[in-house]
């Protein structure tokens, strides 16, 4: 029993990262119908920004305590990562949108942006890995044979709070209504006096900001950074978002945790080697899509987000 609860906690933590990244995919897709393949690498950039921000705050000039550093690093990382996301939108996606380019070309541009982020990181910082400093003094609690760290709690709570926050923004606020409007049909939106570019920038701010938060939390949980860390997890989070029904916030959240649970479950299963993890995980996801091609919460060609 302990064994099962322990693995559920493991899956919740791992799924939180998928969910956080999948939310970013879904937001941008929901508004722009654009699969932002650079998103996994924005997550990586977020982790690196968190590294440099906390290095600076902990450093000799300021010398803050780890806890204060954590408090400051969260908003700073989110803001700076959001700037990266918005820059990408400005220099890569907006010109293409202005010229009315086909969606395919925008997706290819996104892929290239991701590769540029990875390889410019490799060129600037080198292949050697970086060690993320410990910001939260780790407490390991043992409750009846089940161990949990305070960091795990922070990660899981953050994923849930981000989901609730985004859900609130999209469904309950005016700006959310505008986002859904663009998603529905973007041509009449400017006629109603809604600044379409501002709304799109806002979407990128939200998506990239939370990718930055995910990067920070990821770097705290798995404190070894390398330039390609965002690639695989980004792809998997994208698949999770598609299985949940891309464009739907609830779908991204559920899809992320679903993938986390399947992955940890397969490895935890006795007599199953870890080599089977991805095979089983993606077979299950394939079956879900086979039964429901629009994903769990997706609806064919209708209002999303």
């Amino acid at each position: 029993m302990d064994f099962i609860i322990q693995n559920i906690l493991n899956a919740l933590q791992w799924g939180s990262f998928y969910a956080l990244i999948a939310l970013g995919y879904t937001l941008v897709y929901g508004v722009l119908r654009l699969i932002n393949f650079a998103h996994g690498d924005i997550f990586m950039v977020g982790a690196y920004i968190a590294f440099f921000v906390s290095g600076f705050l902990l450093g000799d000039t300021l010398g803050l305590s780890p806890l204060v550093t954590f408090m400051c690093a969260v908003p700073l990382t989110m803001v700076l990562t959001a700037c990266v996301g918005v820059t990408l939108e400005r220099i890569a996606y907006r010109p293409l949108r202005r010229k009315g380019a086909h969606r395919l070309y925008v997706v290819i541009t996104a892929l290239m942006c991701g590769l540029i982020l990875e390889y410019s990181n490799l060129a600037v910082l080198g292949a050697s890995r970086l060690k993320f400093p410990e910001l939260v003094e780790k407490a390991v609690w043992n409750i009846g044979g089940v161990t949990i760290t305070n960091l795990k709690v922070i990660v899981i709570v953050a994923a849930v709070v981000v989901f609730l926050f985004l859900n609130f923004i999209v469904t309950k606020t005016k700006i959310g209504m505008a986002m859904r409007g663009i998603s529905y049909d973007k041509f009449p939106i400017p006629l109603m006096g809604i600044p379409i570019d501002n709304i799109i920038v806002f979407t990128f701010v939200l998506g990239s900001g939370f990718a930055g938060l995910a990067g920070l939390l990821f770097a705290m949980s798995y404190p070894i950074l390398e330039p390609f860390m965002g690639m695989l997890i980004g792809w998997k989070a994208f698949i999770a978002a598609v299985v949940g029904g891309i464009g739907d916030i609830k779908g991204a959240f559920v899809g992320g945790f679903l993938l986390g649970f399947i992955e940890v479950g397969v490895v935890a299963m006795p007599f199953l080697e870890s080599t089977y993890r991805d095979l089983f995980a993606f077979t299950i996801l394939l079956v879900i899509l086979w039964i429901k091609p629009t994903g769990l919460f997706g609806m064919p060609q209708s209002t999303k987000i």
Partner: protein
Amino acid sequence: MKGFLKSIGLLTILLVCSAFLLSGCGEDKAKTIKIGFNLPLTGDIPEVGEGSKNAAEMYLKDINDAGGLEVGGQKYMLEFVYMDNESKAESATNVALKLIEQENVVAIIGPNSSKQAVPAGGTANDNRTPMISPWSTNPNTTLDRPWVFRAAFLDPFQGPVVADFAAKKFGAKTSAVIFDVSNDYSKGLAEIFKSSWEAKGLGPVVAFESHGTKDQDFSAQLTTIIAANPDFIFVPDNYNQVALIVQQARDLGYQGPFMGSDAWGTPDLIKLCGEQCYGNYFSTHYAAAGAKGATKVFIDRYEAAYGSTPADYAALTWDSIGIMVQAIQNYGKVDSDPVAMRKGVREGLAAITSFDGITGSSKFDEQGDPIKCAVVVKISDKGEFVFEESVCP
């Protein structure tokens, strides 16, 4: 006018071509000896490539500053060609082919890790080019490959060393293993350890868990291991994964010791793992702390040049170059034809029966594998690798 321009253009092309041809003739090719290096300069283990390259640069400078290598009474300059195999198996074979076919090297040093050395060794053997792997410990690297040699001991030797040491030091009755299933080195060593542990008849290997190279979360595997309650955990993994595994095991409440293998032995382990790795043990090729003689000279020079302690792969690369140089001197002449030269170098290598290097002295068996001692090292409270004991075959 047009015809005139055309002929001028043709003339220029001819001139340029002949210039290339002439320069090809003018350069005395027999004056340099070209050795290729197949190194992981990027990818999962960039530190390993960097350390090896540093050691090689030091060796190259020594030889060339002294006017070159003396072979058969004449001095020849050495030329080293470094190529990046990205820590990938498929890139390592490509690099080996490039070095052989395009660079026309007479011999190859590297790849370091067995994951790359096993496939690249096949390529070198098929193309009849002598190769020495400094750091690879998997038996398959040299098995039935007359052209492939190595400077490190083998896993069938290392596995029992680890098992014996852990049984004695921790008084362990049960053990658990976590390894990288897609890495020849890690997988091979894990299996050899398992069989040698079970052969001791103390108790079982209670958990034998695998993971992939790009994995970052090991909590599911570690939960299974901890539930089985082993006396220690054996982690034959690369240093970057070790740092994550040790931390996650502690987070899941594991208090017991870890035991590692020679892939732990880099200063980067301490940088990435920090205090959580202190107090654990691993088997390796040499211990930098408390070294004497030629080993100490090498360590001091390396520290002065690069500002860090040389890890075992750097020392083994140094020895590999030494073995290669001796093989060339055994052959006793330098051919302008790389194919003939390679054959001679291979015979020179096969003629070496023992070699005194900075990682200890070794004898070579008929497979081209050295028989040498292993060292068990403890990671001290200051993060230094301290000599614990030495085990000889």
